[in-house]
């Protein structure tokens, strides 16, 4: 426990749900991005998984929509301390997309329209824990929240859930992405409070 701040009691919290350390609840949906919001047409949109041997697996918007859809209801946690509980999404599981991809890689680098990147262990994209999500709260995902489609990896801080996702490069060596290069943690587990490098 830190030093007590004289006169600070905090919000009433008799019914406080379990949150990762350092997080507070929010009802709205803050937007955090490093630059302008890219506008991506569904006609040209594609999602590409490139394996470490150079093989590429591509899906158009229509092809993504034709895959089995899932509707995860998940809690999300932003490194800037807000958490939002019980968010509802629709999208395609990375298990579905990775099924049939021939790879021995251990790492993934997600990349986005607009140039954003973020790295994850490939295992964290498997096992029903990650999606390419296109619908939020029953409506098409708004551009400022990453539409037409974003990565959804709710067990890690939300900067790992790359907005405007365009593809995933499978890699044998880990390569830090945009925020990871700018001082943020390589893995980003909210429950272990892995916010910044060295945490």
């Amino acid at each position: 426990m830190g030093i007590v701040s004289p006169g600070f009691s905090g919000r009433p919290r008799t019914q406080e749900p379990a949150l990762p350390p350092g997080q507070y609840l929010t009802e709205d949906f803050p937007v955090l991005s490093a630059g302008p919001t890219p506008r991506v047409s569904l006609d040209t949109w594609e999602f590409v998984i490139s394996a470490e041997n150079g093989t590429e697996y591509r899906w158009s918007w229509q092809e993504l929509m034709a895959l089995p859809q899932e509707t995860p209801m998940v809690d999300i946690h932003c490194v800037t301390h807000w958490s939002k509980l019980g968010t509802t999404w629709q999208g395609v599981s990375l298990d579905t997309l990775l099924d049939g991809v021939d790879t021995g890689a251990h790492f993934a680098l997600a990349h986005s329209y607009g140039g954003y990147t973020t790295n994850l262990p490939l295992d964290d994209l498997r096992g029903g824990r990650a999606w390419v999500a296109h619908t939020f709260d029953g409506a098409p995902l708004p551009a400022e929240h990453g539409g037409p489609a974003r990565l959804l990896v709710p067990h890690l801080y939300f900067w790992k859930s790359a907005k405007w996702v365009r593809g995933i490069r499978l890699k044998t060596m880990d390569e830090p992405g945009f925020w990871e290069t700018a001082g943020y943690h390589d893995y980003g587990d909210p429950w272990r409070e892995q916010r910044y490098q060295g945490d």
Partner: protein
Amino acid sequence: MATGTPARAPIKWQVARLVERRVETATAQTLVLEVPDWPGHLPGQHVDVRLTAPDGYQAARSYSIAGPAVDGPGGPRIEVTVQRVPDGEVSPYLIDVFGAGDPVEVRGPLGGWFIWRSEDTAPVQLVAGGSGIVPLMAMIRARRAVGSKVPFRLIYSVRTAQDVIYADELRRRGRDDFGLDVAYVYTREAPDGWRGEPHRVGLADVNTHGWPPDLEPLTYVCGPTGFVEAVADLLVGLGHASRRIRTERFGPTG
């Protein structure tokens, strides 16, 4: 996990004390904190501030740092400017309760993207909405502190003249800091002598008071989400390269 990244020492929480408080507007105050082990920072970086209640409950929020660190008798001092968030948990405490000499925990500096490096010679355009001025003011103050001659233009959107944070200093710097131009856009009520009707920042404002895209300026936009979205879209529409537009958005969240 981090096979490709050199290990770095964690950024520790440390105890800071309030040494001075300045009223900026009816809803914003600047807190001067003495932070004995502050390692220094770049303009645009932020600090996490953590409060602890007697029962161990903690609440942390990020605040932009308003200017370069300065020396004080007990160690370096940093400034944050806190805007009161209605029904907020942390900002009302910092504005109404937090007293001179009181301790608070801080962690930083944080953020390595929304920063200006004085060795970068590109012209800079700053677009602030409301309390989004804080990290941009840090850049203006750093420019002055290092004697940089990089041309700066600031467009500052506020509801009324009474909502301008750092009003006196901006007036002074706009006059004295060679190469710094300051323009205001009023959204609710314009002061006497200001030309035009109250409006939100539009194409004409950015065209008149910003840099043209062919000068390849570095642009920093900070403010509420809707403001940043609108301004960034305007800039992209004018032909500014997305990768030269850096944004920081804040939402109505405690």
